[in-house]
Every structure is written in structure tokens, then in C-alpha cells.
């Protein structure tokens, strides 16, 4: 049986191998993903994001158990930061998910961010497709612990859950742009701590100012993840939000926008490689000229691209 067949049957070893190939950008990946593509699109993807130490892994742990109660299969991708200096990483999200390891219906993969800055890793997009084709009903993506502007999870998840904790700053933090805007559901974790109710009020006030009437107003859920409190409500809320997104057609719009964006990024990536390789000699020459102040970078770029044997003839 080949790798594609094994993945479609949910074989964990094959899933793991293909994800490694994707991470290493191996040649054969393109063909394998091509064969898997028509089997994707069935899974519900849920992004769990929030600052470091907010309790994302603990929430993923309990949420996966809830999904298993309904006998649903769950794939988990947990991303931790890669060192910009050595390329190494400590991937420690599994520590909070130990009980899930031996569950037949769960697959967990830890990934290093490997240079990506938006909270995900480059390979996570295709890894989600592999898990989708492998028959996972839910795919949970846990981002790197984020700051204010790492919002790439919206390119990957149907539903984004933003996990916050009390004591992270004053009310201005809640009205700032960036990560506060991407949540479909807010979770206030460690809600047994002081300041939880104030945080909820601040999120609430911020949401009330939202002008966009087409958006579903994100619910706010209180949890104490280490004790599993509030997870049942989160589970119900996720299902409810998914249903509303689906019924209103918003889910389809989201997914279409994501595919469009992915396609554009691929075109850009392939095109840039082609441009750079076909103009290599010219780029070298003009770099020298710019260095010697014989020409400025804008004029040089246009001079390279306007060359008649260049831009149009790339294929």
C-alpha cells in the first residue's frame, strides 16, 4: 500500500512521515499533496491562540477529550518557537496533553515555527491538509504564544479561539488592533484569578463598539483549564459558532478567501524564484552599480524588469 492510501486510512506513521517531508520541503511532497487534495475540506479547523502561558495547551487537552466523547477523530498541531540563532527548538506542548497520547482517535504533532513570524510554521498549512485527508473530524492548531500582531491563524482556522488571562494590562490593550480583532470566541482562562471579571467587561465593551454587522459577535467563555472548568461550554460554543458560520454562508466565504490567498502566495513564491534565477547575472551587475552610486535601486529594478528578453519570457 502506498503512502497516500495509508494516510487516507489514517495510518499515523505515514501521516508523521509526510509532515516531516513537508517540513523539509522534499521534492516528492507536491505529488503526494496533489493526490490528497480531493480528500480535504471535511474537517473543522479550530485555531487556539493567545499569549505565552495563557493555558492554550491545557485547553487543547480538555477540548480534544470533549470531542472524543462524541467519538470524533482529532488531529492536533502544536507550534512552539524556533531559535532564530541555532534553528533549534523545545517543543513542550505535549506535556499538557499526556493523556491523549495513547488514544487511537487522536494524532498530535509538535512543530517548530522555523522562521515564520505570524504564530504558525510554514509547514503547518500543508500539515492541516494531511490531517484533513486522513479523516480527522476536528483539527486543532495551537499557535506559538503570541503578542499583539501574530494573526496568521486566520489563514488556517475556520474558528479562532483567543485565550486571554487577567492581569495583562489596562483597558487600552483591549481596544488595540491586531490579535484582539481575530477572535471568533474569547476565552478568559485562569478566571479564578483576580481581575477576570474586569477583563471580561473590557472585552465586552470593545465588542460593543464593533461596527461590522455582518460579523457574528464573539462569545466570551470563562475557564479554569487546569481543572477542566468551562470546557464543556467552550465545546458547545464552538459547535454553535460553527453552525452559524456554516448556515450564514460565512464559512464558505472564509474558506474561499483562504484558498484565494494561498494561491496568490504560491504564485508569488514561484514567480519570485523564477525572476531571481532568470535575472541572476543582471542582479549582480546592478548591485555593483548601486553600490558605486552609479544608479539608484528603483531605476535599477525597473531597468532589469523592462528588459525585453526578461519578464515576459519567463515560464
Amino acid at each position, binding site marked *: 500500500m502506498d503512502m497516500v492510501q495509508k494516510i487516507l486510512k489514517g495510518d*499515523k*506513521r505515514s501521516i*508523521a*512521515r509526510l*509532515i*516531516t517531508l513537508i*517540513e*523539509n*520541503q*522534499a*521534492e516528492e511532497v507536491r505529488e503526494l499533496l496533489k493526490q490528497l487534495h480531493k480528500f480535504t475540506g471535511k474537517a473543522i479547523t479550530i485555531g487556539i491562540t493567545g499569549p505565552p502561558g495563557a493555558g492554550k495547551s491545557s485547553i487543547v487537552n480538555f477540548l480534544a477529550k470533549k470531542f472524543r466523547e462524541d467519538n470524533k477523530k482529532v488531529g492536533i498541531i502544536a507550534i512552539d518557537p*524556533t*531559535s532564530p540563532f*541555532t*534553528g*533549534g*527548538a*523545545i*517543543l*513542550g506542548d*505535549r*506535556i499538557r496533553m*499526556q493523556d491523549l*497520547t*495513547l488514544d487511537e482517535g487522536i*494524532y*498530535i*504533532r*509538535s512543530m*517548530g515555527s*522555523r522562521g515564520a513570524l505570524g504564530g504558525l510554521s510554514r509547514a503547518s498549512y500543508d500539515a492541516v491538509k494531511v490531517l484533513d485527508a486522513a479523516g480527522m473530524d476536528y483539527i486543532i492548531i495551537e499557535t506559538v504564544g503570541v503578542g499583539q500582531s501574530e494573526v496568521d491563524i486566520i489563514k488556517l482556522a475556520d474558528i479562532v479561539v483567543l485565550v486571554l488571562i487577567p492581569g495583562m494590562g489596562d483597558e487600552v490593550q483591549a481596544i488595540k488592533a491586531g490579535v484582539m480583532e481575530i477572535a471568533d470566541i474569547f476565552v478568559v482562562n485562569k478566571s479564578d484569578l483576580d481581575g477576570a471579571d474586569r477583563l471580561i467587561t473590557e472585552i465586552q465593551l470593545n465588542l460593543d463598539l464593533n461596527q461590522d454587522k455582518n460579523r457574528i459577535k464573539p462569545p466570551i467563555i470563562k475557564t479554569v483549564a487546569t481543572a477542566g472548568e468551562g470546557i464543556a461550554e467552550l465545546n458547545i460554543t464552538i459547535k454553535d459558532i460553527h453552525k452559524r458560520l456554516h448556515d450564514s454562508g460565512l464559512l464558505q466565504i472564509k474558506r474561499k478567501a483562504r484558498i484565494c490567498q494561498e494561491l496568490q502566495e504560491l504564485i508569488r513564491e514561484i514567480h519570485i524564484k523564477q525572476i531571481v534565477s532568470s535575472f541572476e547575472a543582471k542582479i549582480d551587475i546592478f548591485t555593483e552599480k548601486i553600490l558605486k552610486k552609479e544608479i539608484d535601486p528603483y531605476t535599477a529594478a525597473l531597468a532589469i524588469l523592462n528588459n525585453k528578453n526578461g519578464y515576459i519570457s519567463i515560464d
Partner: protein
Amino acid sequence: MAGSKTIRVLIAKPGLDGHDRGAKVIARALRDSGMEVIYTGLRQTPEQIVETAIQEDVQVIGLSILSGAHNFLFPRVMELLREKNAEDILVIGGGVIPEEDIPGLKEAGIKEVFTPGTPTSEIINFIKANVKV
């Protein structure tokens, strides 16, 4: 389009053993040598360790043990790896392990055993010399 290949290592603490300072030091040293280190925390069963290694597609498992149960737990990990056709994974051990137990562990399939006082660079070099990525 071939990109870079990163060595992935699982650092695991099998059995009833509450001390993981050493395991964390090793994890950190491997991180600093450019590897991705999956750390799963304390009190793992051999079954959990082998399943994690497969799901994470690691090339190396580092078992750390201080409890004295290595003669049972290390061979058990090897046995499970063979059952899952995953004996290609390099397994090394470390912790408080008496000299006289080391030959038996190597016979069971543990490639090398590093006892207290081993410089971390020795472990890194051993992994880099024995793993093909």
C-alpha cells in the same frame, strides 16, 4: 526546492521518577545545537514514549532515568519499537545507571548510555554522527 533537514529528538522520562533537571539540561543543549526537542514531561509509560516517537517522527529517543528501573523500562521501549517496525529510531539512555548494567542495555538495543558527568557536547556529537537525515 529541498530545504534544510532538522534532527528531531524525543527526550522522555520513563517510569516513576520525579526529577527532570538533567533531562531539561540535555533538552536545552540539544536545542542549542540546532535540534528540535520534543519534551513530554514526567512519568511516561514505554507505550506513551513509543507512540509519541511515531507521531512526532523523531530520529532519536533519549531516555532519562534516575529511579533504577532502567533494566526493565529501556528494553521494554526497544521491544515496543520493534513491534511497531520503528527500530530504525536511535535510542540512547542517560541518568544514574551502574556500569555493570550498560552491556545488557546495549544488547537490548540502546545505542549508547551516558552517565552523570558526560559533557553535553559528547551527546550532541554522538547524535550527529549516528543519525542520517
